[in-house]
């Protein structure tokens, strides 16, 4: 009968096959049934509460192992992360900083592309950078191009053995996620962002949902 249930592929309203927990008398039967894959768990009679709890825990735990655990909030993604904010406008800087700090990030603000270069020259401690696009002297596109240049040079040195990654470098291959902050989100801007080496863009001022889905790409695995 159990074999039939399984092969019929019956599912609960959640679309998952229900766990089957068998009550049996002897220990010998238990292993046979479980290894045959006919049932998920076996409880021997008389049923004890602890046994019941273990059975349920294993049943639920099994589910979780299958699902990739994703942090569910911006807070869990950004807490403790070192973020560089680059914007020549002091109001924008302060607001971006406030938003990121609220989610637990450790924020440094600079007001120019040039300053961004200094801070993102490897090795450094930043986990990501939010970069304004339109800035005088050196805009976000140019700053990103130059940062990628610096990273490539550093990576070459490491690869050639001229530089040991050592303890001062946390990673052997540098690529700091750089996210453009833009008020005008248009396709053309996006293509230009990608061309100069940016990883993605977010709208300015931040919109929580978009910020989360963008940041999750880089910090999703924790």
């Amino acid at each position, binding site marked *: 009968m159990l074999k039939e249930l399984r092969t019929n592929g019956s599912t609960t309203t959640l679309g998952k096959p229900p766990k089957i927990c068998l009550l049996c008398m002897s220990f010998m039967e238990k292993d046979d049934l479980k290894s045959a894959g006919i049932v998920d768990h076996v409880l021997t009679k008389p049923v004890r509460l602890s046994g019941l709890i273990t059975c349920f825990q294993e049943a639920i735990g099994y589910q979780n192992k299958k699902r990739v655990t994703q942090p569910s909030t911006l807070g869990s993604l950004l807490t403790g992360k070192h973020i560089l904010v680059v914007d020549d*406008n*002091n*109001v*924008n800087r*302060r*607001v971006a900083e*406030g*938003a990121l*700090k*609220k989610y637990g990030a450790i924020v440094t603000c600079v007001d120019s592309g040039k300053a961004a270069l200094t801070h993102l020259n490897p090795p450094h401690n930043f986990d990501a950078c939010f970069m304004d696009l*339109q800035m*005088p002297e050196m805009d976000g596109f140019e700053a990103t191009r130059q940062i990628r240049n610096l990273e490539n040079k550093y990576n070459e040195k490491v690869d050639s053995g001229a530089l040991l990654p050592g303890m001062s470098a946390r990673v052997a291959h540098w690529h700091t996620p750089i996210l453009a902050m833009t*008020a005008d989100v248009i396709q053309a801007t996006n293509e230009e962002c990608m061309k100069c080496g940016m990883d993605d863009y977010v709208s*300015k*001022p*931040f919109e929580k949902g978009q910020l989360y889905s963008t940041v999750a790409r880089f910090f999703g695995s924790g």
Partner: protein
Amino acid sequence: MEVGQLQRSFVEYMASLFREGFLDAQFSQLQQLQDDSNPDFVVEVVSLFFEDSERLLNDLTMALDQPNVDFKQVDAHVHQLKGSSSSVGAQRVKNCCVPFRNCCEEQNIETCLRCLQQIKQEYLLVKNKLQTLFELEQQIVAAGGAIPMVQ
């Protein structure tokens, strides 16, 4: 005035600012960012906005007063103003910036001057409104009350 009355005035005033379009959702975002670790966040950011805007409005006035107007420079100033007003939720000021930038593109001094006039008006209005709002907050706190959270 007793605390309850002050609080009701505050809530009504805040609601009117949103209803009349002076403030948008971004201002609510700023209020949500304020907490115990950042208790003066809104006032701080708005003060920065006032300083920034006044400087930019002066720069715009001077730039449009030149014998040979540098429209690129004018546009750059308007871009800044659009950014900062957007960041604080000063909707009406922000909305003045788009037509202003169009006038810069057309290199039309007349229309630029009119845009400048309008944006100055909107700025002074929202400045006045926000200052009134902050004063109400101070009165509530002085009377021993808590500032109501407005959705």
